[in-house]
């Protein structure tokens, strides 16, 4: 068995819109190894969720117009697989924790039965077995009184509980890959820590790989082996976690790190990257980040930088990565 679990090559997603097709994910390459946690961070709206939906084969059409590229999972190109095969993978080998837990739970069924289902789709389990396991899962994700909660409907749960139900659901079949789309946004830090530990345990015992989409760079720092940084539909930097924090080579990543509010220290005005996200229907020429970049030169306006490998595993898409790297070397 190869080490590579998932290999995304040249993923491109276009949506139809009144102003013509817009490309929300452009030519994205990355891979995930077995048992590895890969962080995916980036600007809100840069295409993280869409990319993960593409992996799941769940991009709705309409509005999707085109999904290009290849998604290799265990030697199979998911984009070319039959529906039935995809179905047997989904929830079983790859599962996803959705970002929006309220609208992602079926309001007409109890949360318990929705977790049961995740198992019943792929395993032959008795309904009471499934129930026991579901309650166990609910307990694992830190929901109190799971026997009662099992019978409740989504609207009766708090935001964080719903999110944990989603997580429990994703864990139900011990998948090989979990795509966690902001799995802990609604959780307090103690529960968050508990969940992250849980995921970590899973990784150790089942070699589960995780794609962790998050905005919380603390979470990234704590859990991820590698990080992908996305901006405007493209991957702009990829590096092992420590490398990313210590030797940031992309101006956008740099900006992100600078924006983190600090728990310690005096209150200062928070930094934020100047300017705003480009309009997808009207992407800037050259490097997509250049209008907001303090390093930008005329070259950046003209030519789209290629993605370059600086050191093994550290790849950047910037004309000025050397300069930035020099500034940031040394880290914290």
């Amino acid at each position: 068995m190869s080490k590579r679990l998932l290999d995304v090559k040249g993923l491109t997603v276009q949506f139809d819109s009144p102003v013509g097709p817009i490309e929300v994910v452009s030519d994205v390459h990355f891979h995930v190894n077995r048992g590895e946690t890969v962080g995916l961070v980036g600007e809100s709206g840069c295409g993280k969720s869409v990319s993960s939906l593409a992996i799941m084969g769940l991009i709705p059409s309409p509005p999707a117009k085109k999904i290009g590229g290849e998604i290799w999972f265990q030697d199979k190109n998911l984009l070319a697989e039959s529906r039935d095969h995809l179905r047997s993978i989904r929830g079983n080998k790859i599962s996803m924790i959705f970002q929006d837990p309220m609208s992602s739970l079926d309001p007409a069924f109890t949360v318990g039965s929705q977790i049961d289902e995740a198992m019943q789709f792929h395993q032959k389990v008795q309904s009471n077995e499934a129930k026991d396991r579901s309650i166990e899962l609910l307990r694992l994700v830190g929901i109190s009184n799971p026997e009662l909660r099992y019978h409740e409907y989504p609207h009766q749960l708090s935001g964080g509980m719903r999110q944990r139900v989603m997580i429990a659901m994703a864990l139900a079949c011990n998948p090989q890959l979990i795509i966690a789309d902001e799995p802990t946004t609604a959780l307090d830090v103690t529960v968050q820590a508990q969940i992250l530990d849980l995921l970590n345990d899973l990784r150790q015992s089942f070699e589960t790989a995780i794609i962790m989409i998050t905005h919380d760079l603390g979470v990234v720092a704590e859990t991820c082996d590698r990080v992908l940084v996305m901006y405007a539909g493209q991957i702009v930097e990829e590096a092992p976690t420590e490398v990313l924090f210590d030797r940031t080579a992309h101006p956008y990543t740099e900006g992100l790190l600078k924006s983190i509010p600090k728990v310690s220290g005096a209150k200062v005005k928070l930094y934020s990257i100047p300017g705003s996200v480009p309009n997808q229907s009207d992407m800037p020429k050259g490097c997509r980040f250049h209008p907001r970049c303090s390093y930008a030169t005329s070259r950046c306006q003209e030519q789209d930088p290629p993605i370059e490998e600086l050191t093994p595993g550290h790849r950047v898409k910037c004309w000025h990565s050397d300069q930035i790297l020099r500034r940031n070397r040394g880290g914290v």
Partner: protein
Amino acid sequence: MTAIPLLELTDLKKYYPIRQGLLRKQKGYVKAVDGVSFNLFPGETFGLVGESGCGKSTLGRVIVQLMEATAGEIRFGQKNVASMSAKEKQAFRRQVQMIFQDPFSSLNPRQKIGDILEEPYSIHSKHSKQEREEKAAALLRRVGLDPLHAERYPHQFSGGQRQRIGIARALALNPQLIVCDEPVSALDVSIQSQIINLLEELQEESGVSLLFIAHDLSVVKHISHRIAVMYLGSIVEMATAEELFLNPQHPYTRTLLSSIPAEHPRLKRERITLVGEIPNPANPPIGCKFHTRCPYVEDICKRDVPVLKEISGHAVACHLIK
């Protein structure tokens, strides 16, 4: 800070009935908010943190009068909210806004973003259509979205974008109080900073008060003047932001602070992990609600309910703090 509070909560309670079975018989209550009291002053940001499911959103919803409190009193601008006249209520509705925790379901799927953002103006002011459109566009810019997005529908946005739409809508009327239920949870740090800066600017300009519910403690710390920590429906500790982070007293607060993820992969924090189950809000433990998981538990904790005691602006509800 003036001495007259904008919002006063006195022993506020909200219980949800639990119904089960085919006939939905009532079987007790979830005590989502169980005796919460605090004051919020004009121009103040009051951070509210706590375990998931401890009743923060419920508290927020009760404050904005989406639900009636089971017991207790809410006074806004010194008026009891429950006995407001229709006119006062309308003014209240204008002055108090909410940013919902779940941005998507709080947006009407059939309305364009532009219309959603124009709505507060068409409710409360007599602007022309054109003025409203301009104001909506300005709002979009302020939260870092493109005015062209006005033509789109909610489902065409990413999670963070939707959240910003919710924020923009709450800002529209320059309210006096905004209940922010996890307003920045789905935003990347850069935009998060932008939004927080925006809120702070607004506060400086107009003196808006914020009830800021969040899980990201660094954010809460940054933005709040005072912070309250909630556990299972009640406030267990309340102090200024600085004080709370420097000198956390309640065991739960300490646990919480210790669980903040490190900012750098090489920094590993000493984390206090809680043992024991999270108790059931329908049947909370007798005595101190935290005693089942508290590392310092003593006999008295299992017997008596600790009250929130204030010592020089730092209030704690714990028997062990003298």
